[in-house]
């Protein structure tokens, strides 16, 4: 059977990890596909997996009463979606919705969490990498909050 190991080791999120760690991660990975419009997860639902987009686009959405569904960010090829699997209570913070037909690598977070107990180094590595990802998403969201292209009083001399 064809192994996902070469693909997993080339993903930006996992690049440079030790081969034995790549092997463990691959053991918790599977290919999956979502149709355009399909929800991959809903706010408050169990966060026991994360995905890396291979092709297509997914949206992180929130529902704002009276304003409908708002897209917070879209995630494209080679990027990871889902970090709530790392932190209790392991519940999704956003709706995750395939905008286009999307191919992903799906990782079983529960399976990986189980491995951390025996391999704290792997846990530390993944925490580091996901923290970076979260930091960059947070930075992007804070720039979004600045509403860069709107009218701002007192901005011009």
């Amino acid at each position: 059977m064809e192994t996902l190991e070469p693909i997993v080791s080339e993903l930006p999120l996992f690049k440079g990890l030790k081969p034995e760690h790549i092997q463990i991660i691959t053991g918790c990975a599977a290919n999956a596909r979502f149709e355009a419009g399909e929800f991959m997860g809903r706010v408050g639902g169990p966060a026991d997996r994360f995905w890396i987009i291979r092709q297509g686009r997914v949206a992180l959405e929130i529902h704002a009463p009276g304003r409908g569904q708002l897209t917070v960010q879209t995630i494209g090829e080679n990027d990871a979606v889902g970090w709530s699997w790392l932190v209790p209570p392991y519940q999704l913070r956003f709706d995750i919705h395939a905008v286009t037909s999307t191919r992903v690598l799906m990782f079983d977070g529960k399976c990986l969490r189980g491995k951390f107990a025996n391999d704290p180094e792997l846990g530390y590595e993944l925490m580091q990498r996901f923290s970076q990802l979260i930091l960059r998403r947070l930075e992007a969201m804070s720039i979004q909050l600045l509403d860069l292209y709107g009218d701002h009083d007192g901005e011009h001399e």
Partner: protein
Amino acid sequence: MSERAAAAAPTPNVTRTDPMQPAPWRVVRTEPETHDAFKLTLAPVEAGPPFTFEAGQFNMLFAPGVGEAALSMSGCSGTVDRVVHTIRAAGRVTKTLRTLKRGDVLGLRGPFGKPWPVGLAEGRDVLLVAGGIGLAPLRPALCHMLEHRERFGRVNLLYGARSPQDILFAKEIETWRGRFDVSVEVTVDRAGADWHGRVGVVTTLVPRAQFDPANTVAFICGPEIMMHFTQRELERHGVPDESVWVSMERNMKCGVGFCGHCQFGPLFVCKDGPVFRYDRVAPLLGIREV
């Protein structure tokens, strides 16, 4: 209609006379671009020497009875018999300009300022990063690159707008996307569920672009904070500050280095810019981290 001049058509070049004296130009066309931006096409009222400008330069447009504003040319650069501006109705002058109709006359001084160094980009990969109305001053640079496509490496346009309704040049973007020799990525900061494109700040497009960081030139145009974060993202991807150029915006009065209104540290944005190499202006930006 072509923006290029017929070789023999004489048109005025007001910079040859008094740079403070606006020349009369007539509105030949006005078109809405988005809910708050519009395109103004102007032709000279009086005959004179040809009007020649380079990508990134600007004019001072005088709305009669209201005042002047600095506005970049958004049409293709060169010698032209018509000048095109794409303008966001932001304040007094630009809101008045939006009310002008075909046949109305306004005052024009220019062209002024240092252009995008398109020559420096030859033989290299190019990143044009635009935010909001910042796509207007970059359009002539892209136009030049597409006209002389063989001179440049991979050409990437990364464009961020506030919402899908704020996307400038939407039809043209589709045409550019249809070409195989330019990569165009668009993102918006906010959108409803009916938008199927990207959502996220323009910096998130940088990792999607194909470029060799050591042999890339980046031109960035947009709000200062956007340019700062874009530069930081480029730095993360290995593009040195010396390869990054930004177009600065300051309120202008004379436009030619007389009044000091646009002073930015030791620099005058109107005369030394508006296009600057990033490392020249970085110490003056003083942007605090968000």
